């Protein structure tokens, strides 16, 4: 088992380093002539007005909240699904009850209008 995790522990850094090499290479080989015009933010020729790191709509935050609720609860369902072969029928029904609670959360968010894009 530990062997398998060692493989992944080696694969992930390699997956990071291999694409980093061409970027470093292009930093070495490519020309380096910078001027203020070239380095300015690209907005189709219009100069940027104000701060670029703007505050943004709360809408995105609400979607993120709904997502967190669902994802965390879905992760709780994985042990149930992995042990499915050994479950009795009533245990399966208990899992379904959990899914129904999840669905109730979705209905709540829907009725509150949190799923509408405004």
């Amino acid at each position, binding site marked *: *088992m530990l062997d398998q995790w060692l493989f992944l522990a080696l694969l992930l850094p390699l997956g990071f380093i291999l694409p980093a090499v061409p970027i470093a290479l292009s930093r070495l080989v490519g020309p380096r002539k910078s001027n203020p015009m070239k380095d300015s933010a690209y907005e189709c020729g219009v100069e940027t007005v104000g701060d670029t790191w703007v505050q943004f709509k709360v809408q995105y935050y609400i979607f993120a909240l709904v997502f967190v609720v669902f994802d965390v609860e879905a992760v709780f369902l994985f042990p149930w699904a992995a042990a499915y072969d050994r479950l009795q029928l009533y245990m399966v029904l208990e899992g379904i009850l959990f899914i129904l609670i999840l669905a109730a959360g979705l209905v709540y968010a829907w009725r509150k209008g949190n799923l509408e894009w405004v």
Partner: protein
Amino acid sequence: MTQDPVGWLGQLIHTFLVSLGLAPEWARALQAFLAAGALATAVLLLTFFLIWVERKILARLQDRLGPNRVGPYGLFQTIADAIKLVLKEVIVPSGADRVLYFLAPPLAVMSVVGLWGVVPLAPKLVGADINVGVIYLISIGAIGTLAVMLAGWSSNNKYALLGAFRTVAMLISYEVPMVVALLVPTMLAGSMGTVEIVERQREMWFVVLAPIAALLFFISSMAEAGKAPFDLLEAESEIVAGYNIEYSSMAFGMFFVGEFLHGFTIAALTVALFFGGWLGPGVDRFPLLGLVYFALKSAVVYFVVIWIRGTLPRLRIDQVNAFNWKFLVPLSLATVAATAVTDKLAAGLGWSRTLALLGVNGVLALATIVALTLYARSVRRRKARAERRIGAAATARG
């Protein structure tokens, strides 16, 4: 020897390394390093070919020729492009967060290469056979979202930031039906390990037992990969390019390597989880035949991905999110519940079990279509009534 060529090769290398005077544990570690390097390199080299395939097929779908100058059938076009990109200047926009700016492109590639670590390529040929393979897939896939967010944030550009925000709203939304749809193969196989999931499809592919879950997984992972019609994160007609506007040279190229590779990766994952992976006739006698089956099946699914990309126009952000939350998520919850109950009731019935699961999926699909039809009709009625009211008001005013 023919039964397990990979294990035989591994044993050979191990014996060789130990004979050089290396301790067995260190030899194992070195072997793991070599294997990981081989997998990562192979996957990244595959991308050169995939970019050509995708451009060529897309061109044919749009009645064009596609790349056809460099090399036979334009096969070396990608290599020429890569050389050109390396020779270009890396521009860092003023005011950018330099560390995050250069962290993002390799991270985007890493999240895709990491996925290949648990994809079973052939019998006994898999990067890592871990017992939480499905959760690993979800968590490593989520790093891609992080890379896009880093790129959009660090570029010091409003359009890039807008693209990144959209991405976060869309990618995390589509993760929900994907995670829930992944419960179905986990349940049918009784394990979260990808190797075990493929192994358990010997009797019947999971796409037959759970066609709706397969479709849900396919659609939501297409959104995760940012393939059209879900390519909002780089809508060139709306926000010039999205999160990667300020990137140039190979830093830009790496985002595209990640994206093209992700397209093939979702095809491979769909095949492994639902289409029997490397299973096929004669695979037990010649294990390497499994690699051929796996590649062929993945190629077919990959073609469908490109086909959809070439056919459908880009969706609007509100449509994308409504489609996810109001259609995919409820359907995925219903699929899991229906599959769980039916499979438990029909356990040990042999062929009748397959028929029962197919029947439940059919009923579910039918119910979905009926519900959609009724909903569309009510929307049409409401619209017509509103128009009539406006018309009446206009006549009353004279």
